[in-house]
């Protein structure tokens, strides 16, 4: 990176349904992060939020609705539609431009107000081909899972282990939506959805309001003694039609490469201490760990078998419970970043991993079978 940008504070809200209304929740999460940092709304340089018009309670132009609730009254602010890590990236850009010392980055999604996620993801399709065949995110993920198992001999048990691990990790996370001790058998015996995908292997629909306060290197010194630095980030888009894509060698490695290059990481397995990734479908955690370079191609199953990705393992993956536990569709990527920030600062409470976390990776993905990936590397 050219110069340094820090995350100086992070705040998040719990994933279960909330009886509070959207705007009040947006206001509260902003207040929480600003109060923690000890600054007022007026001292914030710029605000970049992430939201989506279709995951937004039936109100278009989402940013219009929450502009003032999101601490942006009369500010030069902006908004990203979709992947919330993009709001983080844009916030970083605004600070690096030298025009702002601080940026408030928000990820906003109230799942309670929306229909099933897949009703909405169906509208990612083009109106002429994939829509006529009923494609949605789960449909695409099922096709990807079958290929993954076929190609590399990944087993359903290995995929189910991701659920066992992540929902188990969620028991330590007060913000998690679904948390329980489950067995591989229970996962395998859960209702088939789009086979090979089973109900427990698919993420729920959650609430998610998350806020990060970013600051320039100089400003961060005044705001915190525990800055978490943005070491690198990257993102990459794949081609649109599902049938044109290599679903087992997508664009996550390209996104990761940009991030690693910027962060100077050459051996991710050794240099990264903790991973929070977006796995709306259990098997994707295994596939993504391969694409991120934590193991060789086709070795994602062995990686979970080895126990290394467990909460207490050498490379904890989703110690928060991940997206399988909490899936605020739009803001799930930024939740990953917030979790990494808390782990690096040693502020993750009961879910704090039992090892020193110097460098962590946050990952977000949107689109069918990972059409788009975003990766951020954060470090102490």
């Amino acid at each position, binding site marked *: 990176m050219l110069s340094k940008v820090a995350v100086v504070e992070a705040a998040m809200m719990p994933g279960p349904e909330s009886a509070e209304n959207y705007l009040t929740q947006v206001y509260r999460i902003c207040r929480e992060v600003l109060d923690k940092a000890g600054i007022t709304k007026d001292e914030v340089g710029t605000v970049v939020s992430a939201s989506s018009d*279709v995951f937004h309670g039936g109100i278009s132009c989402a*940013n219009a609705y929450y502009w*003032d609730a999101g601490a942006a009254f009369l500010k030069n602010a902006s908004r990203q539609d979709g992947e919330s890590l993009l709001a983080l990236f844009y916030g*970083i850009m605004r600070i690096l431009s030298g025009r702002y010392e601080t940026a408030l980055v928000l990820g906003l999604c109230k799942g309670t107000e929306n229909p099933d996620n897949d009703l909405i993801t169906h509208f990612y399709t083009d109106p002429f081909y994939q829509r006529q065949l009923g494609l949605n995110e789960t449909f695409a993920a099922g096709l990807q899972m079958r290929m993954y198992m076929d190609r590399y001999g990944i087993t359903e048990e290995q995929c189910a282990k991701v659920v066992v691990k992540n929902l188990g990790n969620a028991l330590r996370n007060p913000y998690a939506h679904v948390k329980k001790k489950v067995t591989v058998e229970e996962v395998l015996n859960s209702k088939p959805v789009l086979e090979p995908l089973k109900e427990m292997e698919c993420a729920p629909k959650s609430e998610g309001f998350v806020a990060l306060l970013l600051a320039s290197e100089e400003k961060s010194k005044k705001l915190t003694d525990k800055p978490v630095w943005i070491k690198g980030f990257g993102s990459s*888009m794949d081609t649109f039609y599902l049938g044109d894509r290599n679903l087992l060698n997508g664009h996550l490695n390209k996104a990761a490469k940009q991030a690693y290059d910027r962060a100077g990481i050459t051996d991710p397995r050794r240099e990264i201490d903790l991973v929070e990734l977006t796995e709306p479908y259990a098997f994707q955690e295994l596939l993504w760990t391969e694409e991120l370079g934590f193991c060789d191609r086709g070795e994602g199953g062995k990686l979970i078998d080895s126990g290394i990705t467990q909460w207490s393992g050498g490379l904890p993956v989703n110690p928060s419970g991940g997206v399988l536990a909490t899936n605020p569709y739009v803001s799930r990527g930024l939740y990953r970043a917030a979790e990494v920030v808390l782990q690096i600062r040693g502020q993750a409470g009961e879910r704090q991993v039992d090892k020193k976390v110097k460098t962590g990776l946050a990952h977000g993905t949107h689109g069918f079978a990972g059409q788009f990936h975003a990766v951020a590397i954060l470090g102490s």
Partner: protein
Amino acid sequence: MGRAVAVIGTGQTRHGMRSEVTYPDLIREAVLAAFQDAGITPDDIDGVVSGTMPSMMEGVALTHFYFADALRSVGKPILKTETCGSTGVSLAITGYYWVASGLADVVLVVGSEKMHEGDSQATMTTVAEPLYQRFFISGAPGAFGMQSKLWLQRYNVPEDKARDAAAKVSVDHHKSGLLNPYAHIRKEYSMEDVKNAPVIVYPVRLLDVCPNSDGACAVIMACEEKAKKICSKPAWIKGVGYAGEEYWIGDSDKVVWESAVKSASEAYKMAGISNPRQELDVAEIYNPFTFQELLYYECFGFCDFGTACDYTLKGTFARGGELPCDPSGGVLCTNPIGATGLIRCAEAALQVSGKAGERQIEGAELALAHAMGGIIQFNGVMILGSKL
């Protein structure tokens, strides 16, 4: 203070009713034109910025997935900026920050809308929440109509005079549209035509209102080093400003319109402009309604509050006047919403690089581009100049 950023290429579609092509093809038309104009290839691009109006208008959610190939974004980082009507300028501002931050040298910025595929008024109704405002905001014209009434009342502008000035804006802009090969509406109207057009939402009449257009605009931006290498006449981004108000329409002053005043003053400060009417050579204003154009002249400091009608009737803001506004024909002639603000930036860039063809304002060196959005809630301004 960041790196200098310039527009080095622009591309627009022929705007209008484009039902003969699919939406991605429409976007590709603008992208191809921008690459041709800049004389570079997609390999030279470090990132892509994309945006439209709300996805509900498109009937496709998170459109950057669907448009990925048409945007030439495969294998590249992308940002998806959307701020309702002001999306176009917000897109340009995103591109600006991306390059200014040093994280990209060259970015492609694309805004688009295929308004004939959706229902614009029905979509805009969903911008208002379903508990309160949705029942009263009669599409965009309702909100803008109220704003114009507030303005007339505040400054005791006689309704007839405002009517004449608004009609002149319509007449002038439609006349300018004839010079713009990309414009959707290319037809001349008389003052009488405008004043006798059917009422949409009183006091707003049909010819006070923008059309629904299909169109896309692509703009390529580059850092100083690359811009100088690639482009003989870069249009330098001298200033950016953006501001938004409360969601609730009644909460803020829509006459001395805070977001408009603030966004312009922010951009002027960055560009070192103290007397905009004298210093600017041309302005491209986002005016979906004639009355609003008049209000903008005042909020942007082109004239004092309450005086826009006098200046307009004198011809100050017409082609050949002291500060020609919307020589492209503006939004009254073309409005593919998600592209509209970016078209303003592209047109401003064309003007300051002397590439605006028949609609060129002779010797233009400093231009303002603007967009508005939300429930009359957001304003964004970009200043472009021929000199670094």
